[in-house]
């Protein structure tokens, strides 16, 4: 009964456990690359108007390569872990590959295609929780905005 009223309509205790798995919580507790970047070539802030959270993503692009990616700001465990995993997954990539990865994350969230690189696999747990998709999207939206400037 309760499950039928969960925010996604298909979330369950099992899927909640899948979302709040140790791998995701580890990123939340000790996020990677959560720091200012003095020599950033671009940055962007994305805000979630629903909750007031905001994530700032900084990138340093050399030629076509993301040689450094970092973030600051405040967010829930999903937003923080998503940002942390994103910095790991995109550093060293080309701009085109990073944007393609952001698009892949979006396809995973909307259920169109669940494939993700291993480093981003914990994000799959967010998919059943539609109310939390915006949290996972936040850093990726900021990244895409930074790369478009």
């Amino acid at each position, binding site marked *: *009964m*309760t499950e039928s*009223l*969960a*925010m996604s309509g298909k*979330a*369950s*205790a099992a899927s*909640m456990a899948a*979302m*709040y798995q*140790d791998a995701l*919580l*580890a990123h939340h*507790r*000790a996020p990677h690359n959560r720091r200012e970047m003095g020599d950033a070539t671009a940055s962007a802030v994305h805000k979630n108007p*629903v*909750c*007031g*959270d*905001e994530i700032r993503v900084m990138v340093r692009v050399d030629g076509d390569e993301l040689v450094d990616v970092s973030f600051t700001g*405040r*967010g*829930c*465990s*999903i937003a923080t872990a998503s940002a942390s995993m994103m910095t790991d997954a995109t550093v060293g990539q080309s701009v085109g590959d990073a944007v393609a990865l952001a698009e892949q994350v979006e396809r995973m969230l909307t259920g169109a295609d669940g494939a993700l690189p291993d480093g981003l696999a914990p994000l799959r747990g967010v998919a059943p*929780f539609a*109310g*939390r998709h915006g*949290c996972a999207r936040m850093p990726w939206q900021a990244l895409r905005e930074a790369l478009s400037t």
Partner: protein
Amino acid sequence: MRHSLAPRSDFPLLAATPGLHYLDSAATSQKPAAVLNAIRDFYETANANPHRGAYALSAKATDLYHDARATIARFVGVADSDCVVFTRGTTEAMNLVASSWGRTNVQAGDEIVVTALEHHANFVPWQQLALQTGATLRIVELTAHQSIDLDQLRDVVSTRTKLVAITHVSNAVGAITPLAEAVHIIRARSAAVIVVDGAQAVPHLPVAFDTLDIDFYAFSGHKLLGPMGIGCLVGRRAILEKMPPYQFGGDMIEWVHDFDCTWNVLPHKFEAGTPNAADAVGLAAAVRYLEALGMDQVRAHELSLLEKAEAAVRALPGLTVYGPAVAQRSGVLSFSVADVHPHDLATILDQHGVCIRAGHHCAQPLMRRLGVSATARASFYVYSDESDVEALVTALVAAQQIFAAVD
């Protein structure tokens, strides 16, 4: 012993979901069958356009619409029911005052006073009015426990103050404002118009507009067991009569000439177009339901649950509760849990059948002063009982366990 003031069986949604613990009534309340039936009855037995039809069915719709206004006026202590204007809710009521009274009376050099406690519905219209007119917006700060700082109100209000906007009860932390003292301070220092946001007060406390010595009072139907899309602006006749219309169209006119118009009398001058009569009738049914319970009993019931919830959550480690002492709050428990974001809390509580609000509660100026982006908020109403408190605490413990797991 568990008891709710109103039986869950009166509320179809709650009756159909026995494991649900709905603790988001400050956002919107559940609806009793009496309200749903009243709306359906209107459409099934009286559906016609009020004020317009020269036939008995229209007269019946007109009577029901007028009776609804009279019922609601009685409930909020207004002797002159023509001073109760139906709106879509509190937000539209505030925009009506800002547009109609504000643009007519506020100019550069004037001051508009709001408090840091306000819901955006009683903050943004005044902020924007100040920007549009060149007036200065002044914000009254809060005490350490998120109540309005009356000393600062004394300092801020002056002969330059044209309007003061103040909430009766805070939606975000539940603080019941010292309204009588605030009004006394404002009246002693200015000729300002006083606008009060009653969205969180009318559902939970006895309210008598005619005794408050204020100019405008707004509230929403959906928070007091009524339907969404209906609310009221109550105003003093002398001010309402001087105000220009808010919107133009049918029913709000007296006579339309080719190149000018005259306006209908109160309250119709402010109710352009076909009225939301069915929802007005539904709101009147909600009012009758609350009157049968008794607003003093509603307050006492919420306070009892809030005391239990407050004691239980304060026993948990790492919890911060916002707002003044329980006796100065409506049935709202706004809190943070150390190292657990409110949205994570809400997701986990949802899995336990517990519905709470997590976010800035449309009160971002207050959140900034609390130093947080969001809080978690549990809110109680007439159908809440001790099982809701127990489920909340159990789910909070579960959430803390998830986030306390060792790496």
